[in-house]
């Protein structure tokens, strides 16, 4: 018995050693969502929490024991992962709800000021900035059925900015101006830009010289990373009436020649990476798929928003393998860390599930969620719509979303390093739990 324990301990150490860095959204350019580390199967304690001035929907990245993330308070932060102490912060001109990327000592990040930042990873000094054509949220007349129907209203659920990906000396990111940009990673010089019909806030995935990204114009694109030329495009659903069931907010995962991506048209799609041809789709009964799927060992792990379902489907066929009813919407992307799946839930909990059974192992609830001010949640932690959503007139939906987020919602995708789980919350804290 002791012998087996020893072996298990050594295996865990090996897994930890493999996890040297987590330098961009979802950990790798293909956005597989597979962590090199093993997450704990039991929650023990909060190691530390790092307070910021506003919500955090960004996901942290890690290199050399330093965490980097963006805050809605406009700062890009570098924090010591051991102690939770700030190393530096750099203020941008707007909220920075993106996941930074790290490469060659540079931190790359987007901001709502419409600028793209390259910062020195050690000091936070600006190495260069690039001005896009301007940021904006997705917007439409009468969006989600809000009134007045003939007035353009910004989408309160367009919460993330595009997270950059770095490959072959270039840094790639999407923008609210509808462009997919390619910049020289060293100098910030524009290599090319690719125009789509609407906002791109998904993070481009990169595989075999091709970038894969969806736009709110209802198309998903494959673009040659060297030239910026379109290779193919795939048409998702449209919703001209209330613009609810349209657009790719999910960032794709590209694994073994297949692109897996969620869509607001309620489908999770599997597309052939070479041709864009649909291999299968999984319909979610009018519930958005905002999360980026994790693809591990022939399984696709994803979750939905309104229906709050946690799914594991067969990567080859799209057939359901496991399904679990969760309590609230999920925008945070699932991370597979060993035999544990971690995901943030908008009711202010971080959840750990068993990869084999999808059963919950443990969860962590933020203080704001426990306090449940204004009864935003029911006693069993489901969203209590009558208490935050009173009307679809004027700014009421925006106010409702604010109320909803004040309970410490977790949009942030968790990061696992050396047995510690790091994530942000809309209560303004970056958490380290173990």
């Amino acid at each position, binding site marked *: 018995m002791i012998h087996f324990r020893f072996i298990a301990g050594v295996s865990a150490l090996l897994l930890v050693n493999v996890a040297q860095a987590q330098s961009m959204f979802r950990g790798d350019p293909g956005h597989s969502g597979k962590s090199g580390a093993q997450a704990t199967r039991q929650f023990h304690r909060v190691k530390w929490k790092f307070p910021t001035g506003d919500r955090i929907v960004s996901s942290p990245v890690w290199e050399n024991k330093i965490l980097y993330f963006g805050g809605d308070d406009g700062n890009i932060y570098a924090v010591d992962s051991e102690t939770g102490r700030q190393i530096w912060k750099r203020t941008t001109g707007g909220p920075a709800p993106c996941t930074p990327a790290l490469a060659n000592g540079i931190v790359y990040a987007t901001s709502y000021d419409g600028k793209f930042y390259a910062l020195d990873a050690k000091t936070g000094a600006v190495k260069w900035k690039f001005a896009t054509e301007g940021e904006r949220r997705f917007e439409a007349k009468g969006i989600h059925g809000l009134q007045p129907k003939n007035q353009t209203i910004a989408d309160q659920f367009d919460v993330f900015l595009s997270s950059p990906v770095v490959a072959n000396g270039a840094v790639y990111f999407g923008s609210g101006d509808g462009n997919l940009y390619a910049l020289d990673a060293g100098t910030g010089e524009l290599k090319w830009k690719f125009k789509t019909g609407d906002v791109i806030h998904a993070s481009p995935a990169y595989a075999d010289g091709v970038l894969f990204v969806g736009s709110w114009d209802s198309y998903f694109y494959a673009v040659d990373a060297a030239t910026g030329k379109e290779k193919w495009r795939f048409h998702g659903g449209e919703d001209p009436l*209330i613009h609810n069931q349209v657009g790719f907010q999910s960032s794709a995962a590209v694994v073994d020649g297949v692109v897996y991506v969620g869509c607001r048209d309620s489908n999770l799609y599997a597309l052939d990476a070479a041709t864009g041809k649909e291999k299968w789709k999984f319909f979610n009964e009018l519930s958005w798929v905002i999360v980026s799927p994790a693809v591990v060992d022939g399984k696709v792990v994803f979750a939905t928003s309104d229906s709050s379902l946690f799914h594991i489907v067969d990567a080859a066929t799209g057939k359901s393998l496991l399904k679990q009813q969760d309590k609230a919407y999920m925008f945070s992307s699932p991370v597979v860390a060993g035999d544990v799946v971690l995901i943030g839930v908008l009711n202010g909990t971080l959840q750990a599930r068993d990869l084999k059974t999808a059963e919950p192992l443990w969860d962590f609830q933020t203080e704001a969620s426990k306090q449940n001010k204004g009864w935003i*949640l029911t006693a*069993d932690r*489901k969203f209590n719509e*009558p208490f935050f959503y009173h009307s679809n007139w004027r700014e009421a939906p925006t106010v409702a979303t604010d109320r909803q987020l004040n309970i410490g919602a977790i949009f942030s995708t968790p990061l696992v390093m050396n047995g510690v789980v790091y994530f942000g919350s809309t209560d303004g804290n970056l958490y380290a739990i173990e």
Partner: protein
Amino acid sequence: MRLIATILFASTALSQAAESAAGRWEGVAQIPGHELKLIVDLSDEGGKDWTGSIIIPGFGVKGAQLVDLHVRGGDLDFAIKGALGNERSGRAELKAHLTPDGHLAGDFKQGGNSAPFVLSKTGPAQIDLPPRSTGVAKEVEGEWKGDYEMMGYARHATLKFANRGNEGAALEFTIVGKKVNNVPVSLVAQDGDFVTVKSDEFGITFEGRFSKEAGEIKGTLSQGPMEAPLVLRKTP
């Protein structure tokens, strides 16, 4: 003698409690981080049945009906119909008692949460009566069918009207999409040629114009923010 005295005492206490509970009551429920203002109107309709309605400022609730309203001596409880509740959270319920100093104090329960409240009487009751179903024309009675499309999906609606004397018309309403939905109906009304059907629970409204000549009820079905044209034709 002792029995008579007990009965007399009990009946007086009940009568006093009933008189005391009737009226307009205003106050707050202390939910965490928020004082929820409540304005409750209660009436015993001159000693008949208890009825009531509630106003919750800021929550879009004006005159929601109180249901399952029970008054026993100084204790009362009721639920709110069609407001501050849904399928997920269940309905909002209040349980209260008259305090010796003339307040109405108790617990406000909703979604498994509970908060204390205290209300003070501010005047006579001003109850908002909910709209009541009316009867429908003889030609409208019977089964009607029609198809519509919403969010890109085809749906089939069946509506079966039947008059129920003084209670107005009753309606069996079924929508078949990917599954069969039996729609709970809150209101059926006919005013001239206009026929209105409402389901508070499903957030569905159908408003249509009945045409005897065309043999149809032509109108619009709305569900939340979405609207779709719907033409109903009578089943032969």
